[in-house]
């Protein structure tokens, strides 16, 4: 353990999780630095939640090493549990209790002294703007409010690390943006490490570092900027009358790889699109029907690394149950 960096609050080494038939996590190694926002990005079923569940002591590992805040995940579970806050993918509030009661129960479980608990409850409710609804039953809350309350609850015992597993799943875009605003605000005001997962590419851009995970493996780990640099410039998409001739022409002047895109378009990358496009159109041997250029996104990075886009997997038994529970909870 002597080679563990002091600034790393989470150290994961050669972690493997084998379920009966599938290898959900396949030999991953990474570390999370203290006070950073660290993101796990990948499609459903990539192993994000499995990894988080192992780190937060809900699931045992098949092999490998996980150290959190200096504690071993298999041997010092209770010590790990006191220093992490969790916001799960599925709601874990009791909807027949009020917001304040949910916080009260959380405080009891984490052994927060009663007086202190009152002060902190008010503090965290204020932070997520739920003070005026604190005595309402959670079942009357909207999805966004529930998620905010879960974030508040996760912070109540002053954890060193806050885990957010798909914090915006199932929320509408406007509410999603709000949740991210709270998370950014939280990061500004508190000294805390945030570990989040998402399969919404754009949303993980607030992270200091991102691990792109696919089929149980980490395929890239870097800052969002550096990840986007993998693409090597702006992305140009063209619709033309003769793709074959156009490809030859592009190859002659740039030498870059050309991909087929949707709707019969072709796609390639260049360093500086604003000076490239005018020259390109002027000298083109075929008629160009449309051309567009844009900055690369993390979506493009994923596409580039895996050859496919992030999309929903087939619904598992658990997803079916999840949908049913969502329906039940709306009543």
């Amino acid at each position, binding site marked *: 353990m002597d080679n563990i960096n002091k600034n790393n609050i989470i150290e994961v080494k050669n972690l493997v999780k084998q379920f009966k038939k599938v290898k959900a996590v396949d030999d991953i190694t990474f570390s999370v630095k203290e006070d950073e926002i660290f993101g796990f990005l990948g499609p459903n079923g990539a192993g994000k939640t499995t990894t988080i569940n192992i780190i937060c002591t809900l699931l045992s590992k098949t092999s490998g090493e996980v150290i959190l805040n200096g504690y071993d995940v298999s041997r010092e579970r209770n010590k790990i549990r006191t220093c992490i806050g969790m916001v799960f993918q599925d709601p874990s509030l009791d909807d*027949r209790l009020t917001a304040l009661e949910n916080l009260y129960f959380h405080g009891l479980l984490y052994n927060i002294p009663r007086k202190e608990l009152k002060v902190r409850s008010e503090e965290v409710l204020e932070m997520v703007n739920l003070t005026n609804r604190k005595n309402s039953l959670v079942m009357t809350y909207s999805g966004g409010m529930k998620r905010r309350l879960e974030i508040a609850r996760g912070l109540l015992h002053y954890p060193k690390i806050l885990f957010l597993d798909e914090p915006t799943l199932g929320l509408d875009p406007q509410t999603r943006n709000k949740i991210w605003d709270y998370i950014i605000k939280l990061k500004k005001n508190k000294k805390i490490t945030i570990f989040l997962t998402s399969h919404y590419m754009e949303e993980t851009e607030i992270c200091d570092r991102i691990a792109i995970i696919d089929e149980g493996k980490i395929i890239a780990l870097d800052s969002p900027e550096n990840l986007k640099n993998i693409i090597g410039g702006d992305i140009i998409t063209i619709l033309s009358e003769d793709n074959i001739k156009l490809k030859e022409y592009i190859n002659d002047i740039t030498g870059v790889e050309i991909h087929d895109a949707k709707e019969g378009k072709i796609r390639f990358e260049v360093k500086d699109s604003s000076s490239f496009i005018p020259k390109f159109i002027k000298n083109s041997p075929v008629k160009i029907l449309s051309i567009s250029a844009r900055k690369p996104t993390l979506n493009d990075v994923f596409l580039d690394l895996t050859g496919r886009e992030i999309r929903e997997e087939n619904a598992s038994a658990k997803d079916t149950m999840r949908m049913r529970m969502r329906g039940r909870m709306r009543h």
Partner: protein
Amino acid sequence: MKKELIGMYTIWLRDIKRYFRDKPRIIGSFAQPILFLFVLGTGIASSFSTFGGGGGKEFLNFMFPGIVGMTVLFTSFFSAMSIVWDREFGFLREVLVAPISRTSIVVGKLLGGSTIAMIQGSIILLFSPLLNIPITFLIFFKVLGIMFLVAMTISTMGIILASVIKSMQAFQVITNFLLMPMFFLSGALFPLNNTVEWMNVVSKINPLSYGIDAMRFAILNNSELQLYPMWLNITVLVCLIVVLSVLGSFLFNRQE
């Protein structure tokens, strides 16, 4: 240690609070016992005269403790089985990452479910004047004790099943293939000593038989209807609770 006790208390308190907030559940929980006792029971009792024979009123009295037992059975079983979904989509998930032991969670859950079952059972006891069954304070406390033992036995079984099964579909299967037979073959609805031999044998390995027998003796105080001595009933239940709760917390502790 204090932390663990607070943990148990938290789990218990949550179940109790939820129960009293769920008014439809409280009202709904009357429906089934009333249906069994006053519709099915009265119907069967009056059919005795059709086929020759008396004892209709005695039959209703016989059935009453069985209905109290039924209420305790279903309430405590469903409370323990709620772990199945609460673990994935509910508050229990939050409890599982809190710094308290799995054993405290199990004990808190057992006590919570049992308390609710005892409350529900006591509500059914309120119908006793309609059947001219006197319930004194002494009888009430005896019944309360037996309800607690039955509820704990069934809850520990529920916890074991909930630790093993993971889906709601399996839950339905268990209700139909375990819970209903257990109820029918417990002596709650008809006497077991005069039926066919296989029923007699099955009822002897059914833990609920002992609970119902104890319940019947405590409420009616009629030794003619008693199948087993009281000490045997209580010993069987206590032993089961000890063995099953150890097994239950072991299974619940086991990580995936």
